[in-house]
Structure formats: structure tokens, C-alpha cells
């Protein structure tokens, strides 16, 4: 029963998230970094230090801090059970509000990157599997190995140098819109959607223009492993019995290829899920180069500032999204592949 499988996965996911949250909680407190001195500075007096420590709640025993964070100590501060992720020690705003502001930026970037990478990789992988051993196949193979091992931040810089500095085609890497443009009201947080909702097609075009280079970088890097996997799965599908039968029955090549493609897509879903989860935090490198202000940059800032609630919040949210993506793709896999029945 698919619905029972989903419920089971969701329950396991909640347990996993809880385990992860507690693990991160203890991990960052075990490490020798001192967020209090980071906050009050090197020359603070002992009283200032103590006061800051009380403010951050770090003077309490660790288990008390954990209970407060989880929301098991009601009446004092809201915790996870009440839906609060805490307050950032750096900015003072709630972690939830900050993540809500930064997360859509990253989601917009990687989703677009994946869509384009998929659109490019599937036909290329399919075509090269149909003509195995040919020159195109070898070229595609080398390209997929090459693209998958590239430092994307360097390619981002390279694109900026070539397409902005030399050719002037791309805008300067200063954010999602030009610094002179007022952004539209943040309804969803996705710049492309918000500009459309505000009815400003000029800002939509500008946002799209600013997204071209970062999305191109991601598409390039993601296409490598996706092509490799599609090609491999396609080659396996083409060698299976039903393709042999279809060919023997005289079906045209195009139709046989379509059947094989469907069989090849299913196992590729898992890899795409893993890549998506990896990219959620990995996109920080591209975000930094283009100053997009996504959750990766937020994570870097939080880590370097020893902002514990923010770090915990980011890890929690990113892992939750990764788990949701895995579940979604497993469901998709089950829908595509009739051999899988839950």
C-alpha cells in the first residue's frame, strides 16, 4: 500500500531528524570553539563574559539546554515542539525567519540548475547509449567524467570573467537583481515568481538575466554525473529481453528507445535525489561567487560566527528537505516502475 509506505517513511524520517538534531546539538558543544568570547570580544571583563554566557543560555547544564531547545521546558522559551528554531546570536532575528528568507534563493538556483541539467543530460545520455563505442559516445563519456570533477566556484569565476568582463553579456555578480533595483515584495521568496506576481516583467527579465550564469555553472557540473548514470542505465535497458523482443518484432528504433528510456529513468531517480541533497549545502560556493544570498552563505556565516541556533536550524532544515526529496523521488520511482509495489 503506497500510502502506508509513505507514512512509514515519514515516521522514520522524523526519528532520523530528531537523532540528527540531538547529534548536531552535542557535536557543536563538544568542539572547543567558544561562541561567548566571539560575541563579547577578546578584552571583555569577567562580568561581561558571564552576562553574555547567561544571555546565550550557555551557563546551564547541557541537558537543560537540550530540553529547552527541544521545547520540553515550557513556560520559559519556545523550542522545537512549539515550532521555534530559536534566535540567531548574531542578528537577533528568529532563525526561522532568516532561513525563510534565504532558503528560497538556493532552492530557486538548484531547481533551475537541475531542470536544465536534466534537459541536457537525458537526451545526450540516451543518444550516446544508442550508438555505443562511437566517437560521440567516447566524447560524451570524457565530458561526463570531466564535468563531474570540476570546482564549480572556479567555473563561476571563469564565466564571470569571460561573459561579464570580456564580453559584457552578463550582469556583474552582485546579487539576484541589480543593486539599483528595488526588489518586489517577497511573497514566495523565489525572485522569478515574485516579480511575475508583482506584474513587473522588466524585473522578471532582470532576475532571469542575473540567474543565467549561476544556473549555467550548476547545469555544467550536474550534467556530468547525470549523463553518466543515464548512459549506464540506458545501456543496461537496451540489453534487456523486452528490447530484444521489441526489435525482433520490428518496432521502429525511436519507439524502442522510448521504452528503454522509461526503464532507464527509474534507477536514475535515486542519484538525482542524492545530488539534490548534496547541492543544497554545496551550492554555497556558487552563491558566494555571485553574491546571491542563499542558505549556503547563511550557513557559512553562522558557522564562522559560532552562531549555534542558526547552525542547528540550518542543519535541521536542509536535512529535512533532503529527506523529503528522497521520499518524493522514491515515490516517483515506484510510480514509474510497475515492478515496485509497496
Amino acid at each position: 500500500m503506497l500510502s502506508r509506505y509513505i507514512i512509514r517513511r515519514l515516521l522514520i524520517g522524523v526519528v532520523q531528524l530528531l537523532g540528527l538534531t540531538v547529534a548536531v546539538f552535542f557535536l557543536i558543544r563538544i568542539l572547543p570553539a567558544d561562541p561567548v568570547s566571539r560575541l563579547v570580544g577578546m578584552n571583555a571583563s569577567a562580568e561581561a563574559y558571564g552576562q553574555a554566557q547567561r544571555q546565550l543560555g550557555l551557563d546551564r547544564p547541557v541537558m537543560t539546554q537540550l530540553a529547552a531547545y527541544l521545547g520540553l521546558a515550557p513556560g520559559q522559551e519556545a523550542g522545537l515542539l512549539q515550532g521555534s528554531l530559536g534566535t540567531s546570536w548574531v542578528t537577533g532575528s528568529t532563525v526561522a525567519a532568516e532561513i525563510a528568507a534565504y532558503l528560497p534563493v538556493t532552492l530557486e538556483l538548484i531547481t533551475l540548475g537541475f531542470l536544465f541539467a536534466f534537459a541536457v543530460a537525458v537526451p545526450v545520455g540516451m543518444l550516446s547509449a544508442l550508438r555505443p563505442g562511437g566517437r560521440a559516445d567516447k566524447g560524451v563519456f570524457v565530458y561526463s567524467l570531466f564535468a563531474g570533477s570540476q570546482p564549480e566556484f572556479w567555473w563561476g569565476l571563469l564565466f564571470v570573467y569571460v561573459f561579464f568582463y570580456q564580453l559584457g553579456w552578463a550582469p556583474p555578480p552582485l546579487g539576484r537583481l541589480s543593486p539599483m533595483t528595488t526588489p518586489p515584495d517577497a511573497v514566495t521568496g523565489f525572485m522569478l515568481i515574485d516579480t511575475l506576481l508583482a506584474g513587473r516583467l522588466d524585473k522578471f527579465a532582470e532576475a532571469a538575466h542575473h540567474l543565467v550564469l549561476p544556473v549555467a555553472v550548476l547545469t555544467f557540473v550536474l550534467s556530468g554525473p547525470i549523463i553518466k548514470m543515464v548512459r549506464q542505465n540506458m545501456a543496461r535497458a537496451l540489453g534487456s529481453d523486452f528490447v530484444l523482443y521489441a526489435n525482433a518484432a520490428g518496432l521502429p528504433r525511436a519507439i524502442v528507445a522510448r521504452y528503454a528510456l522509461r526503464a532507464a529513468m527509474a534507477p536514475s531517480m535515486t542519484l538525482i535525489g542524492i545530488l539534490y541533497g548534496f547541492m543544497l549545502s554545496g551550492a554555497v560556493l556558487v552563491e558566494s561567487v555571485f553574491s546571491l544570498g542563499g542558505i549556503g552563505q547563511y550557513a557559512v556565516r553562522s558557522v564562522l560566527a559560532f552562531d549555534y541556533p542558526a547552525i542547528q536550524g540550518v542543519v535541521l532544515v536542509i536535512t529535512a528537505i533532503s529527506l523529503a526529496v528522497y521520499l518524493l523521488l522514491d515515490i516517483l520511482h515506484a510510480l514509474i516502475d510497475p515492478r515496485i509495489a509497496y
Partner: protein
Amino acid sequence: MSTSDLPAIAPARPDWLFRFGVAIVAVVTVLALIGPHIGPYSPTLTTPRVAVPPPGLTQIPGLLWGQITGTLPYPPHWFGTDVSGYDVFSRVIAAPRTDLVIALLANGLSLALGVLLGLLAGYFRNAGTELLMRVSDVMQSFPVFISAMVLVALAGRSTANIIIALAFVYTPIYIRLTRAEVMAQTARGFVEAARALGQPELQIALRHVLPNSLTPALIQSSVTIGFAILLTAGLSFVGAGVRPPTPEWGLMISTGANQIILGEWWPSVFPGIAISLTVFGFAVLGNALERRYAGG
């Protein structure tokens, strides 16, 4: 899933590609050994010439001649200098030592730990090993880049901590790979034969099953080393990696990044080419090993 399952429609790996990968890995290894000493300048000291571009193509023969005859006032900056005055060429060839040492040690540590734990988990399948697998799952569901950042930044930005952080990220992969292979190997006849001879279980596991189960992990090592270099470079790029002025490709790209929109491309481009080729070489090598040895 192994390559022997694939029909004869598997693509032919061009042989020159494999030799290319081996050549790159060899060059990087040699540079890791002698790189910091053979450059014209010290990789950690600045020169008085700041933000000098690399020589143009037409100047190179003249410079080479001057270098050979010893008539130049100072050694040429083949890759130019960056905004602080460091000679880019000397730092690019000194960086493999930093990156490769980190990558090799991190991979070695996670390989040793992962294979051992994977062996135990695959051979002795009891409640303890199930717990181990759940813990390993939790470790694997940490977002990779963030967990590496957290470990390094909060434990202190030293080489040792980077190695430990990378090992933390890669160990679950080796555990999973080895466990699968061990479970397959344990079903084979030689284990039953050893048991019939009365050998103790632990000895069977270590003496017979372990050597037969190493192949997937060793093949994965090449790719992991390459990705470890990428991860180190990425960490250093955002400021959660090695400390300046350690020569490291990612750090060099980061310091050169601000100058790129001004048109000074050389401090970032050359280290980037180096990383690009190096990780590609390791990936190619890993792929060739997989084709050769993962047939059974």
C-alpha cells in the same frame, strides 16, 4: 551491480584517457614531494612586485633565454603575482603537498575505519552491527559541506581537523561498500570450508573474508581522493579551510576572486586549472580501475 552484468554495449574507454589520468596523478604526486622547493620563489613569502600579469606569449622565449643565461634581474613570474605579491607559479606547484597530504590521510583514515567497521557489520550481523549501520546512516545524512565546515571551523582550522572532518564524511561510504561486498563474499564456499575446519569466526573474518572484500573500497579510493581535494578547496574558498598563507588551490582562487571583475584573471585561473586537471585525473584513474577490477 558490476560491469560484468552489462551487455557488450558498454562504451569503450579510450586508452589514451587512462594514460592521461595516470600521468596527471604521477605529476601531482611528484609535485607533492618536491613542489615547494623547486619554484623560483618561496610559496609563503611575498615579493615586491604586486599584481603583475603573467608574461605574454611573445615574451616567453626571451625570458627563457634570460633564465638560462642568468641575465635576468629577478626570476620571471611565469603565472604572474597576486594582489599581495605572492608568486602564483610557486604557490600553484607547492599546493599539491597541502591538498594531497590532506586527501591521502583523510582517505586512508576513512578507508581503514570504514573497511574494518564494514567487515564487522557484514560478517557478524547482530543487534550491535545494526546499531552501527543506523549511526552510519545518521552520519551520512548530515549535509556534507556544512558538516565539514562545522567540524573544521569549530575545532580550529588546522590540517589535522580538516583531515578528521573529511574522514567523518567519507567513512560511512566505505562502511556501506565493504559491508555489501562482505555479505556477498561470506556466502561463498571458502567461508563454509573454513568453518568446517574449526577456525574461529574472527580469524575467518580477518584472514579470509577481508582480503577478498577490499576491491570496491580500493577502487572508490581514487575517486574519494579527488573529491577530498575538491572539498578541501571548497572549504578554503569560503574561509573554513586551511589558514593563509598556506599554499592551497582553493584559498588561492578565493583571494584572487575579488580581482577577477577588475580583469586580473591570473591569480584565480591557474590554481583552478590545476584543481580541474587533478581531480579529473583521479576520476579517470578510478574509472579505469573500476573497469579493470570490478568485473567480479
